[in-house]
């Protein structure tokens, strides 16, 4: 049965059931997400400064090693079984930064190790992250296309 063609009886039940449903604590979740997400980003910023001050990186080029380092941290935390607990506490706070993306790839890789390296790890690693990559690349393409068209039409007047 589809979601959108409910009988009156079903609608009535839905109302009754909702009275008992525990509501998501949205405000509390937002505050937790803000602070945990902020902390992760602050750590990322510190790592970025570390590469700028101790190695030969500039503010533009430091982002690559920073992302790699943050994903490495995320990998350790995922492997030791900490990141999923952090995720339950922080919600979007730990899912949105790049560490959350790393966690989705790494957790799938660990999970499917029992089905072998090729069909297990290889075939399932991007099960969750695959759509992020697909739509990330696609939306970048669309934005770039719009930019190109605008520049062509208006002769670079916006530059």
């Amino acid at each position: 049965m589809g979601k959108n063609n409910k009988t009156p009886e079903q609608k009535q039940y839905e109302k009754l059931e909702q009275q008992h449903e525990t509501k998501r604590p949205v405000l509390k979740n937002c505050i937790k997400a803000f602070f945990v997400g902020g902390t992760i980003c602050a750590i990322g910023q510190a790592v970025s400064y570390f590469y700028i001050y101790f190695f030969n990186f500039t503010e533009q080029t430091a982002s690559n090693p920073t992302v790699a380092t943050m994903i490495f941290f995320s990998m350790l935390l995922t492997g030791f079984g900490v990141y999923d607990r952090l995720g339950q506490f922080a919600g979007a706070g730990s899912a949105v930064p790049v560490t959350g993306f790393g966690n989705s790839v790494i957790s799938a890789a660990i999970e499917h190790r029992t089905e072998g390296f090729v069909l297990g790890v290889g075939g399932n690693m991007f099960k969750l992250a695959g759509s992020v990559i697909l739509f990330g690349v696609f939306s970048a393409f669309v934005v770039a296309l719009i930019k190109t068209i605008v520049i062509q039409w208006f002769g670079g007047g916006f530059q």
Partner: protein
Amino acid sequence: MIVGKASWFFENEPVIIATGVTGGPFEKNGKLAEDFDLLYDDLWMGEDSYEKAHRLLIDEACRIALEKAELTKEQVNFMIAGDLINQITPTSFAARSLAVPYFGIFGACSTSMEGLALASFLINGDGADYIVTGSASHNAAAERQFRYPTEYGGQKPPTAQWTVTGAGYAIIAKQNEKYSEKPKITAATIGKVIDMGLSDPFNMGGAMAPAAADTIETHFEETGRNHEYYDLIVTGDLGKIGRATVLDLLHSKGIHIPEEKFLDCGLMLYKEEQPVQAGASGAASSATVIYGHLLKQMNYGFYKKILCVATGALLSPMTVQQKETIPCIAHAVSIEKNS
């Protein structure tokens, strides 16, 4: 003997002669740890996949049950069991090593009572001497099949439930003098599939509540019993939300079960501080609590007559993604003990 449309009275009173209950690490820290026969310290249980660990839980539960009943597997006529994993492979693989003629059944989390009702019917009608029946689930194996990888950091809403790692198996036999003190099965009501239009897989208690209410109502109607007949009515894995909703639904139908007489296995297994959101769920929730905890309580004399209503959500990850609503089912079995 059939009464009404969907209920059976078992006039020969088949008995539960022994049970075997196994569990995982989370259950070990839970409220009912001492009611388990065997508890494992980690989810792998020395196996190299969660599915193999799942099979081991069933293997061991059957072994313990047979040992307690002082039976060999050659004496058992049939095995009627199931679990939640695709094609119920853990149970079928356990049946392979047990080498007993086997009915594999799937009723999601209602499998335990589906199996018990069928086993009792077969024994009652002289179709078998001994039947082993039960159900099992494994938290990580279920999690990876129905939701996300175990280590994925997604946030679960407060309506979500925690899949029990465990297996609960019982051996059902014909009534005779030797077993007159054992708990007997007197009636069962088979539920129909009910879909009240909920589609959130993170709120299964809410989806399953109407099925439980319907089966309880049918049971009372067809058997002529009412809630006063029972000391306890226990549901399988409705959790906080489902339990409150069922009480409400029954109330509106004129069945006023006192709240203290209406328990839910999903709310009995774990301690308050364990992070299980709305409660426990999974095929092992009802099986471990009923076969482990409640039968013990009956032996101690706390309860004489209980009605066990196991509820199941008949969804798959694919139907969820295809935006289908969740059809649910509930089966009721009445277990009694001579005083």
